[in-house]
């Protein structure tokens, strides 16, 4: 193939034959569709990040004692907590109730499970490619902090991660003791939706225990 030497040379539309027009039109349609797809993909990611800014404001208002507030007037959910992983420097505002709408804006606390820090196992889920993209970096022994809407901060220590099906995940919400399970989709780098979930189990560090451990570490 010879190198193209035609940069800038005019190509009159009238000189395209029928076959060429067809190719050009198809290319244009495919290109446009591609652009839309890419745009939609980035829109989802941008929405997820931008929403967190508004949510942080709303959560701060809630902590200040203004009661459960809606981050924006047409939102159909309230903020429930702030989750953070101090070692790797990530945090996010957790919403109450897990459905397609809440998960698009932030991690969601499953409302059928106990509150983080209460007796049983609390479950927080988020998308693997947005809010919980850092979940794979949490190592056993890492601290996970959950600041609840009532102002109390619960400190959990992460255990081992594991992989299981969405409906057979072995999470016992009525378990003895105070636990937290963080869940996201697995495999992390897959682009397809699948039945598998990555679950990180963590257990509460009791306040007095935390105080005892702090000077040591």
């Amino acid at each position, binding site marked *: 193939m010879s190198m193209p030497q035609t940069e800038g040379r005019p190509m009159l539309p009238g000189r395209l034959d029928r*076959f060429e027009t067809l190719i050009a039109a198809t*290319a244009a349609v*495919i290109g446009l569709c591609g652009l839309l797809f*890419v745009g939609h993909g980035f829109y989802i990611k941008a929405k997820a990040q931008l929403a967190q800014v508004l949510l942080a404001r709303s959560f701060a208002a809630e902590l200040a004692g203004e009661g459960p507030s809606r981050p924006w*007037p047409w939102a159909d959910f309230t903020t429930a907590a702030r989750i953070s992983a101090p070692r790797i420097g990530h945090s996010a505002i957790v919403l109450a109730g897990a459905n397609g709408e809440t998960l698009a804006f932030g991690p969601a606390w499953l409302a059928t499970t106990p509150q983080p820090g209460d007796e049983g196992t609390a479950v927080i889920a988020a998308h693997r490619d947005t809010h919980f993209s850092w979940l794979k970096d949490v190592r056993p022994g890492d601290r996970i902090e959950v600041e609840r809407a009532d102002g109390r901060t619960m400190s959990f220590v992460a255990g081992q991660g594991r992989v299981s*099906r969405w409906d057979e995940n072995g999470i*016992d919400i009525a378990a003895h003791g105070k636990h937290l399970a963080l869940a996201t989709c697995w495999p992390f780098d897959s682009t397809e939706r699948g039945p598998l979930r990555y679950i990180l189990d963590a257990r509460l560090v009791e306040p007095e225990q935390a105080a005892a451990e702090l000077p040591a570490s």
Partner: protein
Amino acid sequence: MFTNNENAARRIRAQRSSSALWIAMTALLATFAATGSLLTTTQLARAETATTATVELSGLVRPNDMNSGALLFPSKELGYFVEAPRLKTDVQIDVSGPIARVKVTQRFQNPSKGWVEGTYVFPLPDDSAVDELRMQIGDRFIEGQIKPREEARQIYEDAKAEGKKAALLEQQRPNIFTNQVANIGPGETIVVQIEYQQAVHQSGGEFSLRFPMVVAPRYNPAPIVQSVEFNGGTGFAVTNDPVENRDKIEPPVLDPENNAKINPVSLTVNLKAGFPLGEVKSPFHDVTLTEPDAQTRLIALKASAVPADRDFELTWKAAAGKTPTAGLFRETVAGRDYLMAFVTPPATQQDNAAPAKREVVFVIDNSGSMSGPSIEQARASLALAISNLKAGDRFNVIRFDDTMTDFFQGLVPASADNRERAIAYVRGLTADGGTEMLPALQAALRNQGPVAQGALRQVVFLTDGAIGNEGQLFGEIDGNRGDARVFTVGIGSAPNTHFMTKAAEFGRGTFTHIGSEDQVATRMGELFGKLEHPAMTDIAATFDQAKAENITPNPMPDLYAGEPVVLTAELPQANSAGKLLITGRTGDQPWRVEMSIDQAAAGKGIAKLWARRKIDDLEASGYRVNDPQAIDRQIETVAMTHHLVSRVTSLVAVDVTATRPKNEPLTDTDVPLNLPEGWDFEKVYGEQKPILPSPSGDRDASLPAGTLQQVAMETAEMMAAAPTAKTASLLAKRSVGVNLPQTATPADRHILIGLMMMLIALAAIFWLRLRRASLFRRG
């Protein structure tokens, strides 16, 4: 030369265009293939989850589907259980007037060679509670005791940690009894005996009771993950089923005939109606019936046929002309009188009265949480309700998310025109935005003008109840309801039933749950029946002279055709005298009944029935009190006094005796000789004489040889038994839990597809330019 040249150019051009065609075609095909494969994989994943839920086969069960008493062991399939072989079930029902006391004794076996932690499941009728629990696990006897929840939990955990046999019953859902049983050893026999009581159901002069016997649906979950092995690069492969020997896991399907032989049931009813009996029948099962006297019947199940697809039901009527329209019973417990009264309102009055005019305010939730099938069901239900209105009725429609619209700005006549406009409006609603329920509720209760003379004001609320300010809403309903009745319709698979049931109670209406599209017609039909024919409203009970500390239910619900008023009360001292006065209203007509307390007949179990209802009332009053712990304490006091399981009290079973030497094996024919006092397990051990002679002969003669052994083997095969008691509890834990939501956005996939498509487009355009450039040069 020239022509040669031209020919060559043409040839090259032709070659190029054909090769270009090839490239373009391949690129297009690749795009389609890529998108196609992405689509099919998602569809496959979806199909996989769908089949998991629907495949119905004998073998595996889920606790929530259980329709009869059973002991469940965890199975090898996560989330599913196996029923322990039921060696024998004995049911003894004592009906004394308006109360039935049921004692169920079941004997099971652990057919495996390992340790298991089982779950005993028993579906309870409404308004009943288990108050006695006795168990035998292997050679240990344990007995349930009512303790405050935390204390019970501690006792159970301690006992379990010490390796003792233990069982804990906590209230999860009000009407299902589930009980964890720890430390069941290999081959051990388990006997469970529970006692509960229920009020006899009355409707239209017929009395009835039900005992659950339906066999639960069986599941055979779809493969979990299929692995594909490509060998030799041929492109063909075999998928591997991760569950080995799936064909062996599928047990023989139990038809009812066989089930009766494998799960033998003996059932006796000692019916003391308290009035001369007329017809007594069991519509679905063959029974033998004896008549000791006019007011008493003994009923026993015939051994030959026990269809497993129907609940046992017994109905009875009074002898002609003797149908009681009122009854008053008394039980004295610990120096206090407990009363139970029932009155059937006269039915004649409502027949000649024209159906009351109705004023209906429909409130529909179209917030974001309703999006998807929920809003479709809500729209369909509401359209049906509007089209069902009569010409003389008046109505209005209010919709709300974080804003609200009062469609007609007040009540309008239900003319054909108005109904059509409202239906068109409802059909056009989409679900979006937040849930601000209070303004809509206020508009429905306060802003609709006064109730017309003799009309019924009804507020029908369609929502999923995804709200946080329950207390405020209860307060609004309780305080501003006026004469209106509030009916709630729960939409979707998991509405907030607690909120909606309570809201309906405060609103003196009913709660209807619509879980799927095909339930819309039947469930709404039932609701229309109630909306159109209330038999009696504004019911209240007072005691003349005697002090009524506590009357339940409070407030009294409206009655619908044929139902009696049933109330229970606690009086501060024994042998009280005085009069009980019940008032109400049918249509425009007031109605009152007086009864003398000192003429009450003795009845058993009334105190427990009162306590159960009192706890329900206390739970409902929770929103009004700022101190929820005070409510908890009150509930605890009532529950402990009357030995009932509640939200704050649990039944913990502790080891009471070690009656059997460790080395002595327990075999099937063994009757434990030294049972603790008051225990009667004989009926499920060995062959005892039936209480009533059964003419059909010995059931065991027709039992195919080895069937029981076969079932035991199949069960053992499916069970996930553990080598030690400790691992057994870990296995059991695995089986309960929550479903996790989908947590992958399509963002990455969309970006990938988009980039691929743009790349193809760019390649095509680039090629086009190349081709034109060469044409220019050559031509």
